[in-house]
């Protein structure tokens, strides 16, 4: 009997370790593609940092179409990947059906905070707070009194970015003119640098001399055209200051890389629930480095530092677009 017990125990231990050995994390990139220099690339950077530091490997796939989302999720879950990290709000609906089918697998989703599943870690960002800070910098750098905003797909998330940006700009200069355009209404808008470039030219003709791109891969075209036409631009998600040194005013950092890195580091023990990363948690921020040191004046950096502290302390409240689906500072 005791022999039987110890044999069974050994078998169970072997089975458990076998399961643990299989449990490598998986990462599903959204439609913008892995190398969009922005949202998805930030996730890739976080995953790469984890892989380099631990020497472990992870699975990844770049989605090609909307319809693939559920299959990719199920396939990774069936193969025992854990945790499965997914990018973007498009994953919300597939996750809501797939996650309950695999209760032992942990799922992580970035940019979704409204689902209800016990094995799901949902990470949202306070993009309006970071955008507020870059909006202030844009208004201070602008000589023409007109600043631009170019969004990717026209969804509440991107309006949320634009709304924070406009509030920041108006906090510095109440008379400032904020021009806002969206690239499109479908996910293709995340990866359309040509349209981004056209919109930038249109905004320049309206007098904008600083443009903020919150548009994933489309932003590459915005930053390029801004640099070519001699105006300033602001990058998003990843630090994009290095793309055109001396011509990108700053980047609104959204630390997707940190969120992905943390999730991979925690492995299948990752804590589930809803997490919001704002200025206080350093989930969002402005990028300062050698590439934009000449552009950022003493006045700008002190004003931004003060505003950051004020937002964290609650002295400044940045209105979120989500609160009542409208923006006090900007009409879309």
């Amino acid at each position, binding site marked *: 009997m005791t022999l039987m017990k110890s044999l069974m125990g050994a078998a169970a231990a072997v089975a458990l370790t076998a399961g643990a050995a299989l449990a490598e994390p998986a990462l599903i990139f959204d439609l913008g593609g892995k190398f969009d220099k922005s949202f998805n690339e930030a996730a890739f950077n976080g995953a790469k940092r984890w892989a380099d530091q631990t020497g472990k490997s992870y699975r990844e796939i770049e989605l090609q*179409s*909307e319809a693939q989302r559920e*299959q990719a999720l*199920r396939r990774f*879950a069936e193969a025992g990947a854990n945790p499965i990290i997914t990018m973007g*709000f*498009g994953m919300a*609906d597939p996750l809501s059906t797939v996650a309950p089918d695999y209760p032992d697998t942990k799922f992580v989703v970035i940019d979704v905070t409204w689902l209800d599943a016990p094995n799901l870690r949902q990470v949202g960002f306070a993009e309006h707070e970071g955008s507020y800070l870059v909006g202030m910098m844009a208004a201070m750098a602008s000589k023409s009194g007109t600043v631009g905003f170019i969004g990717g797909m026209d969804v509440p998330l991107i309006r949320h970015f634009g709304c924070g940006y406009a509030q920041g700009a108006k906090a510095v200069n109440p008379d400032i003119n904020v021009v806002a355009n969206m690239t499109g209404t*479908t*996910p293709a808008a995340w990866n359309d640098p040509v349209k981004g470039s056209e919109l930038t030219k249109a905004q320049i003709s309206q007098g904008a001399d600083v443009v903020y791109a919150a548009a994933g891969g489309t932003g590459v075209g915005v930053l390029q055209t801004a640099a070519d036409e001699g105006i300033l631009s602001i990058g998003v998600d990843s630090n994009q200051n290095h793309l055109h040194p001396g011509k990108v005013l700053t980047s609104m950092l959204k630390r997707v890389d940190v969120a992905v890195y943390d999730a991979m580091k925690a492995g299948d023990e990752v804590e589930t629930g809803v997490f919001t990363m704002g200025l206080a948690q350093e989930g969002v921020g402005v990028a300062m480095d050698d590439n934009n040191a000449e552009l950022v004046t003493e006045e700008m950096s002190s004003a931004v530092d003060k505003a950051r502290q004020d937002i964290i302390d609650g002295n400044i409240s940045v209105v979120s677009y989500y609160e009542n689906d409208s923006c006090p500072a900007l009409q879309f």
Partner: protein
Amino acid sequence: MEKMPKWADVVLIPLISLLLAALLSALVILAIGESPVEAVNLMITGALGSTYGWGYTLYYATNFMFTGLAVAVAFHARMFNIGGEGQAMLGGLGVAMVCLYVPWPHWSIALLAACAASMLFGAAWAAIPAYLQAKRGSHIVITTIMFNFIAAAFLNYMLVNVMRPKGSMDPATARFPEAVHLPTLHELLAPIGINFSKAAPANISLLVAIFACFVVWALIWRTRLGYEIRAYGHSETGAVYAGISPVRITIVAMLISGALAGLMATNNVMGEAERLVLNSTEGAGFIGIAVALMGRSHPFGVFLAAILFGFLYQGGAELALWTSIPRELIVVIQALVILFTGALDNMVRMPLEKLFLGLRKGVE
């Protein structure tokens, strides 16, 4: 006199074409430094090695049966319907409307209504190019392919502005209610003791597709209309001489073709996604052309070719997940199969015909 036996035409030519495509694909995989043997292994185990793999293979095959039949019917009337993609998209719209806006008591009734709606929408989308071809002589290839773009733009508008639930960011409709969920193969096979994977999307519309294959066979070879379609396809002047109206046959054949393409939506929209998303067709309308070519426009051939392409699709998805072979290369492999089985048909056929003629002479 036939140049070669029927079995050579039906079996040997597709088989040789496939082998050639496989050979070339192997070279491509070798060139990027991966092992072709391992890739084939992965494709076979991934697509056919488990009920999960079979479930996806059959799911894709169901899509391709519908679009393949659609192209085949038009082929019989010597028309090239490249608009399967757009007709299937519109079919999806019809299914979504039926499932979302009508409270169905049971999935079986909902499936009948969804079939009717998807056929109606698909046929309506094919009707305009058909009319333009029949009455105005606008070439059907050009108009149907342009209608794919119009369908995509229209669906885009509907999903973004009309059917997207309030507060949702994703351009997709709400989920269909529980009552219209189609039984999957897991649920269908459980009573007879087969434990089919629960996660796989293959569902009862596979039976609808097989039924459609049978109906198309009966229509083309066992009815007067089918005879007229074939006669028109073989010789327009001959058909006119026999009193067959070209306008009527063109329009009727295209309506049937569009309805079959639209029917695909019962599988991908109602059976799998259970909501309407952008790009829900995933190119199945175009794969249908290859399926019809390979299946020699015969429903049974379409059935087999659809399963082959289902295997290629599912195997390709497995390759993308588990190897560093990029997705684009998998498209290349699929394209090679289409090229060899469809476009380069004569490359295999002519030497074979010579061979068989030579053999026959030897016998005589």
